[in-house]
């Protein structure tokens, strides 16, 4: 029997039982749709993170931390000590001299300390407590910040700040362009050690005096960034909602520490920085710069080193998502088996007739294989369309919600061509495997018994 004839036989049979064929193919469609959505979501996340890394220069950024300490943020007790830490020396202090030394290393474009201080941000009648990040003008002008409205501050001493769009939205300003040029108030707090020196504790505790001093400054907003959940101003070394140039930041009285952990890093009265971000000329400079920095007694952390780990993590995520999608496929496969077995029972006599006029076991198997394959092919193709449409809908709904939170539009799903081709191929494979038992059973039909069958 020719393949074209088997296709004709199979399609005629499927058309005859159109409702059952439709329902079975729908089962396959839902299964494949779920699988396509799951995998495209995993790929979308991977693409977004990868693109964000590439677009924000994170690969050419090296984080330098003091030797022998934990990473600069988070609870140290919860963190396992990374192996890199062994290379740092306990006595190396990451201060301005060290930053200047790092800047002199060949391949280093610039290095700036990671300085954050808590402050009350006031704008347009709204107030919010945020960390203000001190970022040099040279960095504010790079892809690491990505000012979308207005401009980055021109120098390290310009009295101007860059804020994120999401902060403006939280403070009640929906239009970022309109905020450029308007004044933002930064109110920092510091401890007045003079109060302690005068031992006027009675005044402090009676509420007439206070150790805490508020220091308010008004700055024009010169630029607004678009914060995305995957980077582009929202991840990595530059990630805060308010950025201020170092010269301007010096005018603000503020706490010298951002966490209690800073106190443990005091070395002979010298309090170094928690971390220093080092911008490299290119990714090729990473290894030599890392070596030089370690020789200086500091610990390094490069995202480029971690990217393989992240990629491996995405593979695991893909597999988990695919496993969830597979549940629907297994159910669909059982549907195909059920449909095909029912088809044998209904066409028992027809199989007998085919055998009586010369069909061999292979011919019968071929007809049933093609039939189940056709269900898989149609269901798979429809499943791709379903998965695509559902993913677009989910993407739309999520983005509408996120837009209200001030987040920009993001494609959470990615649809490379191989997902569709793979899904249809996989659907065909599953349907053919599902057809093995029914096809064998049909081929074993005894023609004498079948021809007697009513």
């Amino acid at each position: 029997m020719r393949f074209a004839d088997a296709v004709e036989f199979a399609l005629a049979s499927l058309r005859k039982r159109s409702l059952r064929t439709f329902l079975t193919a729908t089962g396959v469609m839902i299964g494949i749709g779920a699988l396509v959505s799951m995998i495209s979501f995993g790929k979308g996340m991977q693409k977004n993170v990868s693109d964000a890394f590439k677009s924000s220069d994170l690969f050419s950024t090296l984080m330098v931390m003091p030797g022998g300490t934990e990473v600069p943020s988070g609870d140290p007790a919860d963190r396992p000590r990374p192996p890199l830490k062994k290379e740092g020396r306990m006595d190396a202090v990451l201060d301005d001299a060290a930053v200047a030394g790092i800047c002199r290393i060949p391949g280093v474009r610039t290095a700036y300390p990671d300085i954050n201080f808590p402050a009350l941000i006031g704008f347009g009648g709204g107030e919010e407590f945020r960390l203000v990040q001190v970022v040099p003008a040279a960095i504010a002008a790079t892809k690491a910040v990505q000012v979308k409205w207005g401009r980055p501050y021109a120098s390290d001493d310009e009295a101007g700040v860059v804020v994120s769009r999401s902060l403006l939205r939280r403070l009640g300003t929906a239009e970022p362009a309109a905020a450029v040029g308007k004044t933002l108030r930064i109110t920092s707090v510091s401890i007045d050690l003079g109060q302690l020196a005068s031992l006027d504790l009675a005044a402090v505790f009676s509420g007439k005096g206070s150790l805490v001093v508020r220091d308010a400054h008004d700055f024009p907003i010169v630029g607004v960034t678009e914060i995305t959940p995957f980077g582009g101003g929202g991840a990595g070394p530059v990630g805060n909602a308010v950025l201020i140039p170092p010269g301007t930041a010096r005018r603000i009285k503020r706490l010298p520490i951002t966490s209690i952990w800073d106190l443990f890093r005091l070395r002979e009265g010298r309090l170094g920085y928690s971390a220093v971000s080092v911008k490299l000329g290119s990714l090729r400079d990473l290894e030599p710069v890392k070596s030089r920095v370690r020789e200086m007694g500091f610990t390094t952390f490069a995202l480029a080193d971690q990217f393989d780990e992240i990629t491996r993590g995405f593979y695991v995520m893909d597999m988990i998502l695919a496993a969830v999608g597979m549940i629907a496929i297994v159910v669909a496969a059982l549907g195909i088996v059920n449909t095909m077995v029912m088809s044998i029972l209904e066409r028992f006599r027809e199989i007998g007739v085919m055998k009586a006029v010369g069909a061999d076991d292979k011919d019968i198997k071929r007809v049933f294989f093609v039939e189940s394959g056709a269900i898989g092919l149609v269901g798979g193709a429809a499943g791709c369309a379903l998965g695509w449409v559902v993913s677009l809908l989910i993407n739309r709904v999520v983005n509408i919600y996120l837009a209200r939170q001030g987040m920009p539009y993001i494609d959470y799903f990615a649809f490379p061509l191989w997902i569709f081709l793979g899904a249809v191929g996989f659907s065909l494979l599953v349907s053919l495997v599902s057809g093995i038992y029914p096809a064998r059973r049909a081929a074993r039909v005894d023609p004498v018994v079948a021809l007697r069958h009513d």
Partner: protein
Amino acid sequence: MNAPPLIRARSLAKTYLVGNVRIPALEDVTLEVGEGRFVAVTGASGSGKSTLLNLLGGLDTPSAGTIEVGGALVSAMDREALARYRRFGAGMIFQSFNLIPARTALENVELPLVFANIDKKERKRRAAELLAKVGLAHRANHRPPELSGGEQQRVAVARALANGPRLLLADEPTGNLDSRTSREIVGLLAELNRGRQLTVVMVSHEESLVREYAHDIVRLRDGRIVATESLS
């Protein structure tokens, strides 16, 4: 029997196992059918006529004995060889016609040609020719439910002849037909027998119907041949 035998069946037996009970359907049947003969197998219901025909047609395999058709040992064939034998060696027609209801008369006749890997155009041509031969050219595109019993049996005859077998086996082909149509069908088989030198073995419980055309009559009772009669 003047012509050389096309069929040689020796000590043929078929036993069915129903539960633990062995039911003999055919016992020690030895039969020779010459090429171009029209042989009628008669007997009461349950005498083993259809079982004998199923064995000769390669639909079933004997429990004992041998069947040789045109020099090929049918009783020793595997499943694939039996399918090939059914495709090319022996055409069969049945009491209940056994046409596929969803397919037109032409498509039913095409069926054996499909399994013989004949291309579509040639299939259509041959099937149309065969339908014309049995007088149904004008009914080619009708489905079996739209045809009378006699017409359906004619379609079945055309289908049985599709791959040009030397042997036609007819299992009670008139069982579902009225007497006039029955005579027409037997007449058609006789015509094919004479015109094409087609060997015909026809099972019937109505001996009177076949006496006019048959060369030989084989009578079966309780699975055994009790008499053979040569009419010409």
